[in-house]
């Protein structure tokens, strides 16, 4: 019985409703339709990108198959292409960037959100957001003239004498290296981690903090045990956004990484990243096989980013659930 009454009610309302309201309903439908188209476009673009990269790389996919992912030779003359050195360089520099950038970034965000006076926090946050707007080629230039000589002359000798027993810190250091790539990426992702983490920490309800302080906790204890766990999901989100940025960064990395497609355990050795290889070689690639190999590199990078995003979702899901239990 109930559905029919509501239906008749609605029909009644519609009959009684002035023209204005009817138009409102109409506008709603249009808004729904347009926003749906916009959202759909994004999905279409992604699917199209995926398809286009996959389809345009058929030459190398046919010739090399899975060997493309495990091969270590990149020879445009002999048309022998293997992507492993590029995948290795991309992952190593990005992970290095996270190892350096996450403690620094999250630490800075905690200071700005929890411990610093509000005035200082706002000014610093503004400056940090400015850093995010600096073009990457500027970072690259700065790195060539300051970071690279600094790493070569001061940091590398110290690392070698202290941790030289690890294969990570052996061999000659020219400055242009995986280490330099990781460092410049760390600097570039810091603004993302800091500004997003700070916003998330500031959004933690005031009651939570006051309750903790009322129970006798210090400000640091409140920040570390109450605010940070509350903001965990957001902080994780900022880190994965930073990682996605690090994986795709091109200009600054190619300027300092040394651009040598070789796999070397040592962080002092030059390497190469996927994005840098595409940017470097695409404009002068003349053979179809070479172009196809570069497009397949792009496809591999696309898959890596999708994978990273999926892992990020999973991590956020599990950590937030844990947070709810505790």
């Amino acid at each position, binding site marked *: 019985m109930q559905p029919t009454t509501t239906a008749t009610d609605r029909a009644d309302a519609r009959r009684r409703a002035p023209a204005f309201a009817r138009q409102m309903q109409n*506008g709603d439908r249009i808004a729904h339709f347009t926003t749906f188209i916009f959202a759909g476009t994004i999905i279409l673009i992604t699917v199209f990108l995926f398809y286009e990269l996959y389809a345009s790389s058929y030459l190398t996919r046919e010739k090399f198959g899975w060997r493309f992912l495990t091969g270590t030779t990149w020879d445009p*003359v002999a048309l022998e292409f293997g992507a492993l050195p590029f995948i290795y360089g991309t992952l190593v520099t990005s992970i290095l960037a996270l190892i350096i950038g996450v403690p620094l970034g999250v630490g800075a965000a905690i200071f700005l959100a929890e411990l610093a006076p509000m005035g200082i926090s706002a000014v610093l946050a503004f400056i940090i957001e400015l850093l995010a707007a600096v073009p990457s080629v500027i970072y690259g230039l700065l790195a060539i003239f300051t970071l690279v000589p600094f790493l070569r002359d001061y940091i590398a000798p110290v690392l070698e004498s202290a941790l030289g027993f690890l294969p990570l810190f052996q061999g000659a250091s*020219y400055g*242009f290296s995986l280490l330099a790539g990781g460092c410049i990426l760390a600097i570039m992702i810091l603004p993302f981690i800091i500004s997003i983490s700070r916003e998330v920490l500031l959004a933690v309800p005031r009651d939570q903090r006051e309750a903790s302080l009322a129970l006798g906790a210090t400000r640091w204890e409140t920040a570390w045990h109450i605010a940070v766990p509350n903001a965990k999901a957001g902080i994780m989100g900022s880190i994965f956004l930073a990682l996605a940025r690090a994986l795709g960064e091109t200009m600054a990395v190619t300027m300092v990484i040394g*651009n040598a497609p070789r796999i070397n355990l040592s962080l002092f050795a*030059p390497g190469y990243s996927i994005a840098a290889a595409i940017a470097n070689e695409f*404009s*002068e690639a*003349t053979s179809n096989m070479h172009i196809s190999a570069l497009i397949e590199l792009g496809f591999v990078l696309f898959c890596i980013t999708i994978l990273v995003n999926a892992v990020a979702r999973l991590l956020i899901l599990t950590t937030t659930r844990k947070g709810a239990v505790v």
Partner: protein
Amino acid sequence: MKRVASILALTLVCVGCSDNPKTDAAGPSDAPTGQILINGAGATFPYPIYSKWFDQYHRLFPQIQMNYQSIGSGGGIRQVIEGTVDFGATDSPMTDAQLTGAKTKILHFPTVLGAVVPAYNIPGISEEINFTPEALAGIFLGKITKWNDPELKRVNAALNLPNKGIVVVHRSDGSGTTYVWTDYLAKVNPEWKSKVGINTSVNWPAGLGGKGNEGVAGLIKQTPYSIGYLEFIYAIHNKMAYGKVRNSADNFVKAELASVAAAAARVVKTIPADFRVSITNAPGHDSYPISSFTWLLIPSKIPDPAKKQAMTDFLHWMLDDGQEMVETLAYARLPKELVDMEQKAIASIE
């Protein structure tokens, strides 16, 4: 809400009508104003002289507008094969396979001469270093690893070359400069030819890569005891130290406009009719061995008569008045005999 809907409708209309100008844009030369627009794309190395030429030519003949995009030789070859530009430009001649792949026959016209030089950074040494072809190949193959290697000391007796490791620097981006460099090394060293080969980008046996001339120069400046190769013009403008190279007449020659022009002059008598020739390791007492032409790629059939006229007029002008401008920009000019041959070849454009 009505307003929203009408705005939406308006944008839809706009999206619809934006398709039309696109089809119009395909033939701007047919514009009623009599403007002739010629589009080209290709090599970055001759970009400074090309942009000067096109600018000067536009001033002389305001109705002719030539646009040039310096997207790289590879891109220039691709676009001229597909016919999306009116002319291309390249630092490495097109291969036979590329020529047969093109819809119309593509003609090569040498425009200016360039050279590639070995540039280095050795603290304490400001003198010019002499390089034998064996030394250059050995260094870039990763076999000669110390600056005081006997092969280097033998021809640099006056210099106190240090006992330091050599840091090799090469281009990481595909480049006509790399093509000339590897072409030279392949000619003088059989191992280089079989192991590495000739291309705009190769699988380097050793060293660090820098993007562009500026990237390589930056790496050399920032890395003590390094050596790399640079375009002659770039090395001059940026005052990089570069060495002499021993030519096929066993003479150590420094890259200069005269020595580069000498290399071209020696090869002119044997140049093939399609002008596709490498002049690295040229014969002659005073020829600089790592010199090269750079070419304009012109389709042999230009259906639009106005465009064809403009293109051939420009080529004649480039070979005549245009050549007078090249040396101010540190390019070497074409030998006289070659200019005459090219003037005749222009007639084959239909």
